[in-house]
């Protein structure tokens, strides 16, 4: 089965500095990878995805992610952090389809991003 790991429970960054939220994955075949953000008392919101093609994927709110096949990583990045970026971030991978052809998304454990003014 596919799996995804987020090694950091919390990332602290000063406003204006670049930020990176790490994600590594384990898959069979070509992965479908996603990043979601969750603000307090809200559902998850889709940020970006990697399916195929360019290794650098651009998404919402100025975020981007770099797919690295050799390191099996899909780190989320932003050149200049904002206080409003403070939230919980989830990396996710699409699992392989089961017998019925359906597949589920497996989420990482989440990383809490805190941007200080």
């Amino acid at each position: 089965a596919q799996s995804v790991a987020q090694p950091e429970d919390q990332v602290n960054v000063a406003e204006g500095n670049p930020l990176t939220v790490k994600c590594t994955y384990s898959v069979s075949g070509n992965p479908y990878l996603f990043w979601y953000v969750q603000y307090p008392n809200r559902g998850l919101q889709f940020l970006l995805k990697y399916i195929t093609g360019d290794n650098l994927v651009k998404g919402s709110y100025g975020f981007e992610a770099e797919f690295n096949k050799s390191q099996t990583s899909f780190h989320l990045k932003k050149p200049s952090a904002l206080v409003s970026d403070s939230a919980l971030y989830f990396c996710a991978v699409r699992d392989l389809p089961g017998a019925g052809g359906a597949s589920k998304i497996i989420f990482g454990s989440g990383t809490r991003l805190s941007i200080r003014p």
Partner: protein
Amino acid sequence: DTAVSQTPKYLVTQMGNDKSIKCEQNLGHDTMYWYKQDSKKFLKIMFSYNNKELIINETVPNRFSPKSPDKAHLNLHINSLELGDSAVYFCASSQGAHSNQPQHFGDGTRLSIL
């Protein structure tokens, strides 16, 4: 124009009771999901329906029974509520049972068992 809406937003009830959570999506998607997020924020899928057919059924107590009356609705009924059922339950939808399309989430139902 809420894309995925859940009701109620908060649910406080006593152990042993039966309760239902409703979900509706207006995105025209054919696949809907129920997730459970625990107090440590771990997110785990419970069920998924595609065109009203159950396609994913994780290891969930049979006290939990989903029902999809049509593609736009997915409800969750829970019998004999237990303390461990306290969590936030999220509904989501997407297009395709196995596709690269992202899922769209509701804002959750916060279930507290007294």
